């Protein structure tokens, strides 16, 4: 039987590696799509030997395609793993940073800056929108945290507080849109659709760094999180300090999600579906479930980003729409195929 468990674990590792290879494929699909007419061969040549490429190709590859593609992987992975841990600590498959108002908070922050004219400031505007989006996103988490603290961080209170946040921030968002000029309203709408276009070599290392630190802490706690899937009392009886872990994980999820949505806007679907697909394929041993959720999130967002560039010739279709349009059918097929 030990051999059986060893081969079971080996099988999961192989599936995870295959998913990683698919993720790399999705990354290159995102790299190769676009309206510039650069061939994949030119792309590879420019990636591995940038000095030999002409300025235009170098700019397309290194300043446009590469940041967008790297950001796609990072944001997808961040939202995927954040959703996975959120679902685990709240014992609720519908929980995600999106359904709990973390993204809605970011939307309000970004909209507020745009309505007040901060977004159009020459240099500051570029940083002001994500910075305020981040602050509002953290504020939404802080509100959920404080409400939950009064009720010993029970999952149901956290979910209900989060739903309250969604409605509150949506109302605030509607108010700001009502107040906005036509041009600002358009900017707000595009921001809320989500976009990888603002990816650059400044915000990528920030998100990459946050993701790396948070992901390592998640993995260190993998067994404790797995135990929490058996219910609070059982996890406590196994030696897990459930309240402390739930609090710590919630703070980490908040920081990771707030950083991701501050740079790319609200991309909703991934935090729910990435973990669902991962769970269907590998189960809930969190040592595999969390990385698989990250990889599934990265695959979905990279594919969606690629499709968004080829759907309408010469234009980039909003990615938030695509994630749902290609993700939901794929998800439903998996759901129906599951034995």
């Amino acid at each position, binding site marked *: *039987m030990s051999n059986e468990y060893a081969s079971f674990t080996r099988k999961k590792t192989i599936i995870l590696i295959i998913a990683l290879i698919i993720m790399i494929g999705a990354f290159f699909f995102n790299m190769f799509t676009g309206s510039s007419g650069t061939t994949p061969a030119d792309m590879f040549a420019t990636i591995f030997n940038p000095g030999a490429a002409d300025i235009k190709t170098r700019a397309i590859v290194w300043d446009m395609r590469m940041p967008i593609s790297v950001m796609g992987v990072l944001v997808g992975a961040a939202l995927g793993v954040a959703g996975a841990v959120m679902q685990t600590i709240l014992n609720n498959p519908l929980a995600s940073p999106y359904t709990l108002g973390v993204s809605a908070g970011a939307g309000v922050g970004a909209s507020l800056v745009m309505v007040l004219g901060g977004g159009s400031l020459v240099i500051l505007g570029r940083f002001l929108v994500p910075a305020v989006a981040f602050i509002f996103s953290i504020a939404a988490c802080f509100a959920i945290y404080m409400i939950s603290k009064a009720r010993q961080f029970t999952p149901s209170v956290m979910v209900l507080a989060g739903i309250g946040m969604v409605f509150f921030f949506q109302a605030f968002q509607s108010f700001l849109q009502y107040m906005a000029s036509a041009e600002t309203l358009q900017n707000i709408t595009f921001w809320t659709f989500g976009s990888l276009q603002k990816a650059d070599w400044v915000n990528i290392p920030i998100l990459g760094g946050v993701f790396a630190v948070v992901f390592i802490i998640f993995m*260190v706690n993998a067994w404790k999180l797995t135990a929490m899937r058996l219910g609070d009392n*059982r996890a406590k*009886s*196994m*030696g*897990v*300090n459930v309240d402390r872990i739930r609090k710590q994980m919630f703070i980490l999820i908040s920081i990771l999600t707030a950083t991701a949505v501050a740079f790319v806007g609200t991309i909703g679907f991934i935090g729910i579906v990435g973990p669902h697909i991962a769970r269907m394929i590998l189960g809930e041993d969190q*040592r595999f479930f969390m990385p698989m959720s990250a990889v599934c999130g990265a695959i979905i967002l990279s594919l969606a980003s690629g499709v968004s560039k080829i759907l309408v010739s010469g234009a980039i279709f909003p990615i938030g729409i695509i994630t749902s349009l290609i993700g939901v059918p794929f998800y439903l097929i998996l759901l129906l195929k599951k034995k």
Partner: protein
Amino acid sequence: MLQVQDLKFSYGKTTILDNITFTANPGEMTVILGANGSGKTTMLQCINRLNKYEGQVSFENKDIAGFTHEDYHDMMSYLDQNLACDAVLTVFEVVLLGRLTRLGFRVGEEDTASVENILRLMGIDQFSQRGISELSGGQRQLVFIAQALVKNPKLLVMDEPTSALDLNKQFHLLDFLKQETYKNDYTTLLTLHHLDMAAKYADKLVIINDNKVYAEGPPREVFTPKMLEDVYRVDSEVYIDSNKDVHLIALSSTDNKQEKRSIA
């Protein structure tokens, strides 16, 4: 040895446990009995440190409040009554989690061997790779019992370990638990609903009634028609067979008798 001294617990103004005092010895099965709502589960939860209580609970002469959360749960196992579970985990993974305080990121050979051993001993190794949520209530109960035993705890606390099992499996399980308790010197504390089973398997009984310990001792001393009338409100006959095992026959509820009297 587990020593419970003047244990008190209340929900708001409602007293659930009042000055509960008893001991449970290593190598013995101590069975807690009492009517519905008498506070048996609440008491076990206090011993599992899930409830804040007054009084003192000591294990091996040390107040359990003095242990760190991890250290305490490394030496004790607790089985709760709840059998619901929707986690997407295999039986092997669920039982493995019983060794959580000792698990490294990579699962060691000692861990897998322990899981393999307990599944085989309990005769559920054929379920090993099945999903926990696919199992019946009784099968799931056996898996959670295996999870409680897999770390070889010094203190084993089980709330209704036979509630979902058929009669045959109840005998098998209690025989097995008794054997493991003797062999490994576990201090085993459990609640049971079947009084006959309690009489057959308990080394010691602790009867809880009206928030207090009504009686404590071996089944032969504790099982009396008077106890059954006072605690369970039933008329009964108790007899001891040639093997000196205690048996009881419950005849009728004393509530019915009172009703008949009042009708007459």
